[in-house]
């Protein structure tokens, strides 16, 4: 049944993603112009406009449209979640954190601009995300904008994204159980996806019930993303993945296949996809199509 839905929307989904991602790219380009001091803004633009599928902003816009809002209303929030995602990568790649020299085939921000600029540019982007939401969101009541700002702040702070990063750092080399692994992924990956979807739903005028359904949806696909990632790492070749396969085994990272085995991990992924899509069952199926397709894309991707 899911496969059927997937094939039915596959083509539409691709063009939907491309169209929205293009709009997001244009909006991001305009939101962060080059100004003084040039180097900070250059560094922000370097990472922000480096490409990527723009999954978070598209989720934000799709959720806004799903609850009956105009997608453009959510554009500043969509840009904000991408800015946060980008700044967290800029800081994550630093030598004192993950120490990564490359991201998406390009030298990381601190390799090009220096560590101090990567820290400052990231901080500036973090605060700008809030400034942008507060000033650029049009056609929504102030109380909804404020609520969305509060939600974003919660999702990315010490109860959200940062909590995931901290627990991840602190459990390197430790024996990690299933619950612990789930905590890391629910915070490190799912929290910002949750924020993206919930911001869109708030700004689109969704009811509290709708917002909570979409919140559950996002948490499920966030976890799903990670489970699938872990499975691909052990089942695909480097060639198929476009990146080094088997990395998790080499680094002895705790993964779902390691804890559950491949078969059980696949079942868990199916279950998460089903849980996610069930949350959408009461919405207009036509309007829910982009989110259903996104869930299927995350579940069935081959790399």
């Amino acid at each position, binding site marked *: 049944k899911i496969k059927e839905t997937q094939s039915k929307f596959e083509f539409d989904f691709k063009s939907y993603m491309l169209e929205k991602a293009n709009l997001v790219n244009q909006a991001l380009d305009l939101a962060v112009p080059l100004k003084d001091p040039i180097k900070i803004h250059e560094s922000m633009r370097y990472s922000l406009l480096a490409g990527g599928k723009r999954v978070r902003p598209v989720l934000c816009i799709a959720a806004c449209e799903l609850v009956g809002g105009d997608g453009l209303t959510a554009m500043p929030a969509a840009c904000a979640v991408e800015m946060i995602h980008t700044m967290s990568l800029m800081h994550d790649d630093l030598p004192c954190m993950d120490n990564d020299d490359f991201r998406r085939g390009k030298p990381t921000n601190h390799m090009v601009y220096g560590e101090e600029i990567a820290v400052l540019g990231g*901080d500036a982007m*973090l605060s*700008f995300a809030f400034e942008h939401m507060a000033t650029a969101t049009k056609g929504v009541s102030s109380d909804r904008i404020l609520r969305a700002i509060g939600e974003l702040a919660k999702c990315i*702070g010490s109860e959200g994204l940062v909590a995931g990063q901290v*627990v991840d750092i602190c459990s390197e080399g430790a024996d990690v159980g299933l619950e612990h692994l789930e905590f890391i992924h629910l915070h490190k990956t799912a929290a910002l996806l949750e924020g993206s979807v919930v911001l869109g739903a708030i700004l689109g005028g969704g009811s509290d019930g709708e917002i909570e359904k979409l919140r559950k949806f996002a948490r499920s696909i966030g976890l799903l993303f990670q489970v699938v990632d872990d499975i691909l790492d052990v089942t695909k070749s480097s060639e198929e993945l476009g990146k080094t396969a088997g990395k998790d085994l080499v680094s002895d990272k705790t993964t779902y296949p390691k804890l559950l085995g491949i078969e059980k991990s696949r079942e868990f992924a199916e279950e998460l996809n089903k849980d996610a899509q069930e949350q959408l069952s009461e919405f207009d199926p036509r309007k829910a199509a982009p989110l259903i397709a996104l869930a299927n894309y995350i579940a069935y991707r081959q790399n």
Partner: protein
Amino acid sequence: TSSVSANFDLKSYWSTLREEINQKLDEAIPVKYPAQIYESMRYSVLAKGAKRAPPVMCVAACELLGGNRLAAFPTACALEMVHAASLIHDDLPCMDDDPSRRGKPSNHTVFGMDMAILAGDALFPLGFRHIVTHTPTNLVPETQLLRVINEIARAVGSTGMAAGQFVDLEGPANAIEFIQEKKYGEMGECSAVCGGLLAGANDDELQQLRRYGRAVGILYQVVDDVLEAKSSETDIIDYEKQVEKKKGKSYVGVYGVEKAVKVAADLKAEAKKALEGFEKYGEKVLPLYSFVDYAADRSFSFADQV
């Protein structure tokens, strides 16, 4: 006004507010799982001896314009959170490389660089969240809160404090005015303007608060530098070390003590001038007014100050 201002007891006004703000900050960051990050955030935000000048200025500006101080407390706390976040990151080895702050080891010295980065990354959003969740909506309209959030985000952002820190680190040379204005004036300006916004100030009043806060913020730092230079003059090696470290980074380092004292006097006059339009509010202007004198003269200190 100066004779009246002499009768105003700034120290007790400030002490009372300071205690309340310390308590609210303590409550705003309870330790949860994972404890490390909360400990690290608390270490910097609740550091003993912090004077809480930005929050006190915010509350005083709000009260000056007839606002309720309860309306200003959450924003006042947020100012300390984002300020602490900036300072934690400024102290990192890749930035100013400061192993200590206020006489205590800096955040990364205690918790490690990775935690220090993440503590800053968590404190920025916590500040914004605190404003949204704690400001009584019956006291402040939502549109004003959006302006407050915008003001704070801009102050710490790429054309504000981050720009000051950038020029401080990478030049160009002779940018001392720019650095001081951005690194120190911005926070003062933001604090005063936020207080005004929370009380519903009009554009004219906000403009005056902007001038006032900026002047006081820079004044405070210039006087700090002058005092530091004077106190280390007796130890010539220490003095030279200070000058070397701060070359191009402070008025004293660039222009010497004498010129810095002159700059301080100008800033003091500028700050008081900005308050002229508020004299119609009578005694309510006294906290902000005597704040200027304090920034210039440091006539008292708090018992726990480091």
